[in-house]
């Protein structure tokens, strides 16, 4: 293990040798968000894919009916944010594990963060600005 690898493993920035607890909080976040997501995502999949005809009954009117209720708006918003942060952190870990060159690792993570931020903002905007009378 090189010194650079070692400082990554210890969660240390090579420029700043001070210990950071970021990796600990990221590890804990995966477990806490994972438990919440079990209810949100499995509930979502059960309602959308299995209950009452499953995916065959989904259309614009179905979405409009659900998002008329703040309960499902908050459900979907929480699911969007938690799932995106959980998945982004998972992919960050995978990039750190397998991309060996510093440059590759840096740019793959930049691509990940920019696309994740775009998806989170887009999804949030869609939930808050949904208009059932459009078109």
């Amino acid at each position, binding site marked *: 293990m090189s010194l650079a690898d070692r400082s990554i493993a210890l969660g240390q920035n090579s420029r700043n040798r001070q210990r950071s607890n970021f990796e600990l909080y990221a590890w804990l976040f995966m*477990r806490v968000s*994972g*438990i919440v*997501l*079990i209810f949100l*995502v*499995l509930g979502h*999949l059960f309602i959308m*894919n*299995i209950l009452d*005809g*499953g*995916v*065959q009954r*989904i*259309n*614009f*009117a179905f*979405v409009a009916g659900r998002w008329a209720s703040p309960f499902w708006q908050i459900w979907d918003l929480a699911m*969007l944010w938690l*799932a*995106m942060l959980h*998945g*982004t952190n*998972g*992919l960050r870990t*995978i990039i750190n594990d397998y991309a060996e060159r510093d440059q590759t690792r840096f740019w793959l993570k930049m691509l990940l963060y920019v*696309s994740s931020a775009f*998806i989170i903002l*887009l*999804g949030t*905007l*869609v939930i808050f*600005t*949904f*208009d059932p009378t*459009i*078109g």
Partner: protein
Amino acid sequence: MATAPVGTLYRGGQGMWSWVAQRITGIAVFFFLYVHVLDTALVRVSPEAYDLIIATYKTPIVNLLEVGLVGAVLYHALNGLRVIAVDFWARGPRYQRQMLWGVVGIWVVVMIPGTYYMMRHTVEALFGATP
């Protein structure tokens, strides 16, 4: 099969392969999530645009992919609980293999009726028979 090294859970055997599967299902679900937020965003374009993209979700091949998606999410969720038990429960590492069989067992028990309900319409449309 060679025995796994003592004192580690993630090197070799079921401990390692369940971890590999956790990564693969995680990546697959995450990429689908990107696509899914984009297709849902079409509700801001027009009802017709949204209904058109949702129609692809109702086709037989995509319907089959949905079963795969639910299977991937379910494994990731159940094995995630097992990882939490390994990390926080004092006896978790000792029972990790038994817990993996529990994960596989629950997965099979849920996926059999789940697949039936998810695929029922597609099977009826393709073969005409009402199961």
